[in-house]
């Protein structure tokens, strides 16, 4: 059936082997490979005179490390002229590369890569030229940032002083979108709302937390609108509540997704569609995706997801020994790249299971789920606070030395 000696077969084989090779390269080598390919492309574009330079009078990035503190280290880039993908000369020592980007029609933003391998990107952190002169006071420069980064044992979560104040609870679906519907007609949108309200009531009592619901009634909300809502409210943490459905299968599973780009091709595909009209080349995006794996958001979302998963599964398994723990997963909800906060999507149980549907109809069971989510969030927060306490101590030492 398959003629192995066929010349075409050999060529196909060579192409496939190269594909496997690329697919298995360590991320840094793959990035190098992509960068080389792209820089050659831009060279050609330059010759053709096609390079359109986007003049941005001045770009000003604040990376705020200490919330409410007097010290506000920032990185400044002035007189930057960027073409998408172009490397900019004269950058502060911290940044090896910066590019202008425009993601999904949102305001222009800048993407930079630090020498330490981290990536930062800022939405809405760019200010126009007139703001650049806001001056006044000492702004510690890139050196300070480098100093911080070079401390042994320092992780990004420590650096950004991430303290959770505002939690957004998102009840999945709603309004015209019923979500999944159980075998006896129970609708996902109603149950997620009820669980969200219960969780709200529980968390509201916690000291120092501000809790917000994306919807408190049966209304239609687009995913995009939810993201905007999260941003508008300066949220620090997002939990989106959903119910799973497994058609034609009595199995009931619990799983928690954390938003963000996994390094798989699927997210790239979605990103390609989402960013079709942006100035991002797909190559740029895949590079960003590859690097975002190490970001703060990814680290923290993963931790949050595992706390929630453990608590929800642990709670619901009592009384349902056949419940399956599907673990925590990433999924390419690329539109949520925009929320730079720990965000998870909890599929708390399956509405497609008849027994489970009956349980979900009972207030006591919903409250058990809400309680489990609360425990997950609180245990994550207490872990975060312990970490930050350690980080604050280290930070004070660094500043004393510098």
């Amino acid at each position: 059936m398959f003629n192995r000696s066929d010349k075409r077969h050999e060529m196909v084989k060579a192409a496939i082997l190269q594909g496997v090779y690329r697919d298995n390269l360590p991320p840094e080598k793959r990035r190098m490979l992509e960068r080389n390919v792209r820089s050659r492309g831009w060279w050609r574009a330059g010759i053709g005179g096609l390079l359109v330079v986007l003049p941005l009078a001045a770009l000003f990035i604040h990376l705020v490390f200490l919330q409410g503190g007097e010290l506000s280290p920032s990185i400044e880039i002035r007189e930057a002229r960027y073409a998408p993908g172009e490397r900019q000369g004269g950058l502060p020592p911290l940044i090896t590369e910066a590019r202008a980007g425009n993601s999904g029609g949102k305001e222009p933003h800048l993407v930079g890569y630090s020498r330490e391998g981290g990536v930062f990107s800022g939405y809405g952190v760019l200010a126009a030229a007139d703001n650049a002169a806001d001056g006044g006071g000492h702004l510690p420069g890139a050196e300070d940032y480098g100093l911080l980064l070079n401390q042994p044992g320092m992780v990004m979560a420590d650096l950004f002083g991430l303290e959770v104040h505002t939690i957004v609870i998102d009840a999945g679906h709603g309004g015209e979108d019923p979500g999944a519907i159980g075998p006896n007609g129970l609708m996902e949108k109603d149950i997620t709302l009820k669980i969200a309200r219960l969780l709200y009531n529980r968390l509201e009592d916690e000291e120092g937390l501000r809790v917000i619901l994306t919807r408190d009634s049966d209304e239609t909300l687009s995913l995009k609108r939810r993201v905007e809502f999260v941003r508008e409210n300066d949220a620090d943490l997002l939990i989106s509540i959903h119910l799973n459905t497994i058609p034609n299968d009595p199995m009931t599973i619990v799983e928690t997704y954390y938003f963000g780009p996994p390094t798989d091709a699927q997210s790239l595909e979605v990103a390609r569609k989402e960013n079709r009209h942006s100035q991002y080349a797909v190559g740029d995006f895949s590079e960003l995706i590859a690097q975002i794996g190490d970001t703060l958001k990814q680290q923290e979302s993963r931790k949050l997801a595992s706390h929630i998963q453990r608590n929800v599964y642990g709670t619901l398994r009592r009384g349902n020994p056949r419940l399956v723990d599907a673990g925590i997963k990433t999924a390419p909800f690329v539109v949520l790249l925009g929320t730079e906060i720990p965000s998870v999507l909890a599929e708390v149980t399956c509405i497609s299971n008849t027994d489970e549907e009956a349980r979900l109809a009972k207030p006591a069971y919903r409250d058990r789920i809400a309680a489990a989510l609360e425990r997950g969030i609180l245990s994550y927060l207490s872990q975060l606070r312990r970490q930050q306490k350690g980080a604050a101590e280290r930070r004070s030492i660094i500043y004393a030395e510098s």
Partner: protein
Amino acid sequence: MPKVKVSQQGKALRIGIDLGTSRSAIAASNGKRRWVRSLVGWPKDFVARKMLGDRVLFGDEVNEHRLSLDVVRPLAHGVIKSGTEKDEESVAELIGHLVGLVEPRPRQKIYAAVGVPAEALKVNKQAIRQAIADYAEKLIVVSEPFAVAYGMGALDNAMIIDIGAGTVDFCIMHGTMPSVDDQRSLTTAGDHIDEQLLGLLTERYPDADFNMNIIRAFKEEHGFVGDSLTQVEVEARVEGKPVVLDITNEIRRACESILPAIAETAMDMIARFDPEYQDQVRNNIILAGGGSQIVGIDTYLADALSEMGPCNVSVVDDPLYAGARGGLALAKDMPYEYWMDM
């Protein structure tokens, strides 16, 4: 002219591994090949350690001693569960065990190509790489159906359906590395059949004692779909006494339970494929994995797909080793300079 002596030790052993939810297999360039059930067990307590020694157990040995062991089935549901160290550790132990089975020379370098369920590759490629890294000098990880396709030389206009325990993985090959659109997974697979069968049998014979191992053995020995020629009778225990039970209908229903979803997915994927080549793909459907051993499954699927036009569904020759063989072929064909870069 000076003679150049090539040290055997310097020559790397190429291995292909099929890391499955139910079974894992290895094939090596030294001609050896082995398989083992994907079960890893650690002695539970002091008493168990006294009896079994302070070691990790694998495969059937785990089943034998399962009461004294903490048993982990790595890649249950086709993925490493994130956050559970035991899962990652068990994958590493299993790989170490498999590599030991093909007896590399002491200090011999190992270049490995490992096929994993498509879902695991997507979700936790990094964890898998880390688990394997200790045992291989150089390493590539690919999806299981892709490894099977490569091993068979089915690189162009073919569809592989790998029916495993945790997932059914689909992969269309069209002369390049398969992209996301060319691959899909279903989570109703071999394990689902076991659950269905257990449910059906418990319903029909409420007094009989079944467990998952017994159920799985029934499936592996008697699994079929479509028309049966003979009755399927098995021996089971009712209140401790051996009796013969007729399970013909139950086993058929359980095995058939996963097929509609498979047929539908296959049709959908073919329908999205370049119309010019749809005929070719339809005539090149290859079933692999443990599930391909269900009697009559090829005919059933060919029948279900026939509404799209004539099609040809075949079962891979050697399902137990097809993935490992494909991995080995990849490991052997991969050019040296590519290996050096990894």
